[in-house]
């Protein structure tokens, strides 16, 4: 599975066709009920309710949910109060269905908005069923809530999701307008911009790019716009992200854009990231982010090789340490071997050599490799670092190695160091070993 797959894997799989058919059937039945109120606006009908009201309307294709805690739309799956990236078993429960909006109403004003997809389970409180409404009416009403000054910012922000999920409407212009409106709460603006990008309607790229580049707007909004660019379908925002990085008018924004480029599989994103690493004109901050994201590409041996090849040419130890981290985390056996080489290299700084050892220790290199390396090293600081690496490993052979050093190393400082870390181990053999040291 590629990074794009992870970002964009759809939520609706199991029983999609069947579920959608059932849902449409249910809609057909429910369409009978609201005709008596055809002339009455939805807003008035909601305002007349005391307590909870519910409306339903058709959802976009690719929308599914479990009727309660989860909603999925194309790349995006949400569970209540948080968003998750993966799906796992959730997909099995994700069924197409109408958008179901539960509105809490007090004194004619909406105080809470909850959105569900599909039929709900048992209701814990009485609900006034306002039946099925047309998507256009629903969207008009919900956008009214999102724009309105009469409701709290949470209600306004929560009204955006069901509006975005409504079928057969073009909503992104209205959402972009909301996102641009600096009079609206930040959460409303951010939510509107996200869903403007997510619904996949044309014409969104330029407004999102404009917000990202607008130095008069708030930093959090601009950062969010960069994120939204990264989420546009078919890597549509990648050129804009590259422009932001290249222009580097605001280094903090360029750094964010670099990060999001790293999440893309687009070839031009990869190419740009590598250029950022090698281009001497690029700031250390942006270069560091490029090194970081390339290092996180665990399934890309070319990126790993690229980082190793350019290690010596990097202008600072800080950047080199980022390479060490990426190689240690994602470089596999080849990376571990390279890290050992760095650690052994007398010509390198002690700091870099120690970092190489540390990150080698975070990978899957067998403990025996570190034991052999310990014997080959002659620098006490590096040997101490190997001892530390051994102390962080859970396998019993690492404890064996520490006990061996503590028992018989010729350098008593190293023996003490090994003992210190042995003390932190939760292994019943350690106390017996330490006691035996004290008896002789």
């Amino acid at each position: 599975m590629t990074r794009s797959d992870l970002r964009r894997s759809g939520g609706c799989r199991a029983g999609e066709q069947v579920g959608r058919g059932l849902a449409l059937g249910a809609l057909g039945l429910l369409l009978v009920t609201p005709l008596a109120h055809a002339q009455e606006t939805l807003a008035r009908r909601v305002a007349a309710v005391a307590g909870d009201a519910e409306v339903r309307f058709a959802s976009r294709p690719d929308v599914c949910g479990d009727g309660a805690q989860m909603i999925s739309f194309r790349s995006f799956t949400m569970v209540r109060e948080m968003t998750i990236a993966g799906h796992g078993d959730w997909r099995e429960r994700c069924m197409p269905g109408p958008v179901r909006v539960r509105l809490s109403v007090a004194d004619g004003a909406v105080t809470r908005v909850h959105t569900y997809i599909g039929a709900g389970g048992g209701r814990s409180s009485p609900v006034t069923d306002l039946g099925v409404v047309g998507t256009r009416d629903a969207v008009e009403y919900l956008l009214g809530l999102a724009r309105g000054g009469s409701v709290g910012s949470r209600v306004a922000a929560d009204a955006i999701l069901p509006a975005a999920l409504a079928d057969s409407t073009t909503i992104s212009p209205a959402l972009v307008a909301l996102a641009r409106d600096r009079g609206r709460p930040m959460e409303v603006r951010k939510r509107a911009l996200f869903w403007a990008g997510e619904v996949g309607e044309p014409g969104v790229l330029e407004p999102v790019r404009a917000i990202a580049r607008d130095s008069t707007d708030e930093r959090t909004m601009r950062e969010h716009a960069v994120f939204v660019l990264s989420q546009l379908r078919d890597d549509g925002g990648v050129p804009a992200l590259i422009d932001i990085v290249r222009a580097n008018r605001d280094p903090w924004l360029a750094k964010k854009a670099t990060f999001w480029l790293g999440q893309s599989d687009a070839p031009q994103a990869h190419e740009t990231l590598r250029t950022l690493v090698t281009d001497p004109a690029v700031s250390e901050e942006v270069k560091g982010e490029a090194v970081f994201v390339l290092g996180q590409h665990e399934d890309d041996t070319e990126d790993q090789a690229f980082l190793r090849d350019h290690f010596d040419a990097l202008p600072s130890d800080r950047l080199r340490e980022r390479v060490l981290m990426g190689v240690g985390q994602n470089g596999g056996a080849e990376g571990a071997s390279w890290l050992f080489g760095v650690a052994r290299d007398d010509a390198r700084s002690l700091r870099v050599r120690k970092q190489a050892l540390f990150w080698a220790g975070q990978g899957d290199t067998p403990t025996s490799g570190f034991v052999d390396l310990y014997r080959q090293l002659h620098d006490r600081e590096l040997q101490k670092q190997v001892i530390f690496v051994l102390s962080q490993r859970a396998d019993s052979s690492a404890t064996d190695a520490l006990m061996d050093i503590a028992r018989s190393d010729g350098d008593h400082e190293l023996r003490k160091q090994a003992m210190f870390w042995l003390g932190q181990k939760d292994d019943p053999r350690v106390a017996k070993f330490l006691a035996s040291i004290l008896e002789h």
Partner: protein
Amino acid sequence: MRSVVIVVGIGAALAAASAARGQPLARRVSAAGDGTVQMRFASRDGVCGNGRGTIGTGGHAFFRDVSSSSDYGHWRPACVPGPVRVVAVVRGGGVDRLRVFVGGNDSSADVRDLGVVSAREAADYLLDVARRGAGRVGEQAILGAVLADSVTPWPALLPVAGNASAPRATRESAAFWLSRAAAAVVNHRALFEEDDDAPDSPRDEVRAQAIFALSQQPRDEGVPALIRVARTNRDPALRSRALFWLGQSGDPRAIELFAGIIGGANP
């Protein structure tokens, strides 16, 4: 386990007795009303101080008021033998704050000076305060009682150290001083006699580190091993170190060990 019960029983009996003996001083403190009272009493051999934040014993300052160190610039504050001086702030009949000094005097007009009191009476009073006082009051009261001359505070400290509902600082202070008393007993020296526990060879350093490493082990492994060292190791310095770390453990088995080692001794 039985010995713990006995120890606690003895401790409680002694505590009750000492509370009764301490009453006259408690009454004098109480009669002084709300405000600050000061008293002095004889200190153990080897105790010194500068009348302010520093208290030393056996060549080591073990308590130092950090805020006062800058008063001396590059000079080390003088540590001279002298009486223990306790300054207590009383509010509503209870001790609200308590500080222990060696030497010096607070001649402020608002301090009611109770003058010199007997070390035994002072220790009884302070141990009673420790049993009832919160946080730092208990810790300081124990310090004052331990510094008192010709007093055996250990039986009264055992139940304090083992009392899980006592304030943590008080409990830890009691366990610390019990561990020091036990170390003095196993090393056949006075509580504040100069010691030579510092490791002076690489081998000693490694062994000292092994003791520390044992102290970091899960209790069920580390505490029994440390107890074995404290009971049977031939090196007094290692035994002393093991006792120190046992004192830091707060483990009931350590308190039981201290009781067994100290017995009726007063190092």
